[in-house]
């Protein structure tokens, strides 16, 4: 009986310890709810009203009219496809390059710190600066890349003049801007792996490839997942670079959901702009949930 009481007491103590960290959540959750969830939710209400620049008061509920109009807009499918393409290119390239460079930098080379700084520099530049740099690179007239092609005796390419080459140019700029961030996160993950695992594997006679595949990779999967998730979400939300480099053009060829929202705002059609945002948010939530479900399987280490 005494033993039983002791166990029950121990259990209570353990529960308290487990519950304690949840107190730490209260403040951030309250801040998040007050400053993000509530304003966003109230904001989405406007997707169901006749809110426009010409009508800022006396708004009326118009049901799904804005959503229907937005879904019938020819730019939405273009933006949808482009958004997915931007996100996929960014996610794959940033994750792979981030991993490769982090692996190289983790090899105790002399210039590790300097190289880490160099690779990270693009991440601190604003999208405007990066956009202007890559606009100069990909310009048809006087662009650096076309000058190099011409020097090699090749014809100029009208990079920004057609859909997929313009999407490619934007994606390259976005990858360049973000790969440094992925390197730093992945490198931190690699450096947190205990050397005991690696030494044990070597003692067992594992090759470098086997160590990488069976030790390093599984142990840093949670870190890689963070990279993938961030790249995916921010890739889907791409706006600034597109706006600076092409403005969504030529025509509507490089539009994303972000530029569509901006266009509707510019035209004073606020209700439709919010409707696009609502559709996009639902899409983002679905993608995030699916990814979280899938990625949790990758993190299991046997």
């Amino acid at each position, binding site marked *: 009986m005494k033993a039983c009481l002791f166990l029950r007491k121990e259990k209570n103590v353990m529960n308290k310890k487990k519950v304690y960290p949840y107190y730490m959540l209260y403040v951030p959750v309250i801040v998040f709810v007050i400053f993000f969830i509530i304003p966003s939710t109230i904001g989405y209400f406007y997707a169901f009203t006749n809110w426009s620049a010409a*009508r800022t008061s006396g708004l009326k509920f118009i049901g799904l009219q804005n959503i229907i109009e937005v879904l019938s807009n020819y730019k939405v499918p273009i933006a949808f496809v482009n958004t997915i393409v931007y996100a996929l290119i960014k996610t794959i390239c940033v994750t792979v390059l981030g991993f490769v460079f982090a692996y190289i930098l983790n090899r105790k080379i002399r210039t590790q710190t300097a190289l880490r700084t160099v690779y990270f520099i693009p991440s601190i530049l604003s999208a405007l600066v990066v956009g202007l740099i890559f606009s100069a690179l990909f310009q048809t007239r006087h662009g650096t890349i076309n000058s190099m092609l011409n020097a090699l005796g090749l014809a100029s390419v009208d990079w*920004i003049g057609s859909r997929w080459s313009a999407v490619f140019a934007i994606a390259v700029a976005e990858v360049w801007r973000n790969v440094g961030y992925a390197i730093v996160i992945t490198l931190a993950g690699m450096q947190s792996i205990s050397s005991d695992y690696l030494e044990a594997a070597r003692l067992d006679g594992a090759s470098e490839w086997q160590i990488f595949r069976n030790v390093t990779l599984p142990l840093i999967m949670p870190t890689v997942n963070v990279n993938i998730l961030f790249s995916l979400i921010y890739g889907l939300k791409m706006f600034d670079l597109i706006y600076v480099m092409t403005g969504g053009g030529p*025509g509507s060829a490089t539009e994303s959901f972000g530029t569509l929202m901006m266009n509707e705002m510019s*035209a004073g059609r606020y*209700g439709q702009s919010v409707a696009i945002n609502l559709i996009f948010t639902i899409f983002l939530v679905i993608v995030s949930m699916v990814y979280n479900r899938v990625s949790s399987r990758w993190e299991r280490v046997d």
Partner: protein
Amino acid sequence: MKKRAAVLTAIMAASTILTAVPAMAEGVTLTLYGNADDLAKPYMQKIISMWEEESGNTIDVQGLDTNNAETIALTKFTTGDIPDLYIHFGNANLNNFNPLDNFVDWTDAEWVSDIQDSVLPQATYNGAVIGLPFWEASNSGCFYNKKIFEELGLEQPTTQAEFDAVCDTLLENDIQPIYLAAADGWPILYQFAFDPVVAEHPEYVEQLNAGEMNYADIPEITAMCEWFQSAAEKGYFGETYASDKWDYTSEVLGTGEAAMMFCWDTWFDTDYDSESYDYVGSDFGIMPVFMGTRDQGTYEGGNVNLMMANKNGENVEAAKDFINFMAQPENYNAAFEGVATAAVFKQETSNVNSTQYEENKESVDSLINASGAQPKIIGFSQSEGGSALLQLMKGEVDVEGCIKLMDDDRNATLASFQQE
């Protein structure tokens, strides 16, 4: 202790008075929002400094990024951040700013009778004069390199067929006929083609704005689209028009790479870079625009910016004083001294006509149409229409599809005004 407190109080009171007195003497600071490029015009800066000097007040000029000026201004207005003064073209998009609720009504002002009759409608909104048209009144048309035309023995065309033949001859001589900065959308300037249609059929505007008609119902709009499509296919705009930007206009015209462009005459005085290239501004002449809607071509008259005062602002009296100051003949004549523009005011005498206009005055005067489409058609968008035409030129949509894109965008804006 009491003595020390009294001394401290006296020092604080004195410092308060000393800091407050200069502030009172500095006068009022008015906030002015507008497109940064528009506010940088020399005559605009001159009139502001003249008023500041005379009144002792100041104007905090906040130039909004040229490409996003309207969006930024709209956001500010919607969130209640309305400046004391606002400058905007007197077009249908002004609807978004609720002019009658936000701006001073000048209908009874003395200076209204001094505004040229051709300009006054642009300053009028629902029967009320809502701003002072203080701007350069330009003549828009097709500008051509006179030297290249002379070398190739080309004459100014007088019909659409002759214009197309000129383009063909230029192409045969490896010269790009027209520089079209289509990447920016707005420089396609397709409103030039609309103006004669609107002038000949004023009922179209009423029907379009009432939602009773579409562009698809207007045969001239179809003709315009067909011309753009055919011109792009023939190579009149070169190969890279989809990525060509307005920034390169001086270079492309100045080097003779292209022989023509759609533009306005005052641009050659205010923006064209005559110093860096082979051809100077006076090497270019003006001729009618041929875009498929009017066989003998057309020119477009001035589209003017309005200076408006926030009628609900704290500094409304000072803002009104500034606009009344701008409207004084001696002041606007000083500001527009030597500026190439048609006269906006009846007593405007210090301006000069552009070289291009002087050289081809007869043609301009006989074929000019007031800027009609942009100020009058609700939802008319230079950039969205330009985007649709670009898709047509690139073969992404056909003529019918292009007109539908233009109609859909216009109708969406129209609906945002009409929803009850």
